[in-house]
């Protein structure tokens, strides 16, 4: 399967020993948005300056093969028209940790469905 920008940067981030949280702190990206980029739901940044910052945080040397690949993948990347959203029922939890330790209300459960759907919404 052809490598995408999304899978490439995720793989490099994990290989660099960075959590999503650490990566976002170092680059200034919003965590939920970057998570969408890593899932291929948002297009990657196109600014060379931003992409270079990403390569620095990922410890990718300038002009290395990985550097070129990241730049190429960013240039080529777009969110596919036929991207299939995951089955929302598979993303729903059976158990969850609540703050007040009680079963959530029906409204809270409906809100959760909306939030999960939104987390997988892709923007072209």
């Amino acid at each position: 399967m052809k490598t995408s920008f999304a899978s490439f940067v995720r793989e490099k981030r994990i290989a660099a020993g960075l959590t999503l949280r650490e990566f976002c702190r170092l680059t200034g990206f919003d965590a939920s948005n970057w998570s969408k980029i890593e899932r291929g739901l948002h297009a990657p940044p196109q600014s060379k300056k931003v992409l270079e910052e990403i390569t620095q945080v990922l410890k990718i040397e300038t002009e290395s093969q990985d550097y070129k690949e990241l730049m190429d993948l960013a240039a080529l990347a777009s969110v596919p028209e036929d991207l299939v959203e995951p089955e929302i029922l598979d993303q729903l939890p059976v158990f969850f940790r609540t703050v007040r330790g009680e079963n959530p209300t029906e409204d809270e459960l409906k809100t959760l469905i909306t939030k999960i759907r939104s987390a997988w919404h892709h923007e072209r």
Partner: protein
Amino acid sequence: MAPRKVISVKLTQDKIREEAEQFRKEHIFTPDLPVDIEHIAEATMGIRIIPIESLQKHCDMEGFISKNFTSIYVDEFLYTDDRYYKRVRFTIAHEIGHFVLHRSTIDNQYFRDEEDWITFRMGINDETLGWFETQASEFAGRLLVPIDPLIEEFRSKRGFVLKKHSPWDSKPLNDDDLFSLIAPLMCKRFDVSAEVIERRLRKENIIAILGR
């Protein structure tokens, strides 16, 4: 259709300990502390961490693992704020606990549609849920705070605490006081809250192991 029932699985403390140690063997390749739970979830289990805005505020939830075990969702604010990151670490370990301990229960649930899922969730009673949640938390505590370093830390800090808080004319500290005074000094190494350390000290019956 008759309402479906989730039967609480009553695992013993020994079983949870065994499962946590087995998980450690299979997924954690370094004795370093704190346990890098987020990296373990992503790198060795292939689970995505997905931050969601206002998950706690709007849904009263700190996090959850998806039914198909591919994603752990966390509250974005808690996830990115240093003051709450300990809680998020514990939540991730807790959700891994559900994966390890309750996989078959989760796998056995089938939802026709979203309404069916809501009906299912509203129908689980608090006592049953309590069992599952307590077990997942027990697993998380054992994973993040392994027994040997727990004993080591307790041993190295207790003399200081006993000396500092035992003036000549007052009663000696009881175990509960000792735990609550020593836990904040021990939690840094494990990057968990003092409450988690206190619970671990009690569960491991540390006084019986080491004395005071």
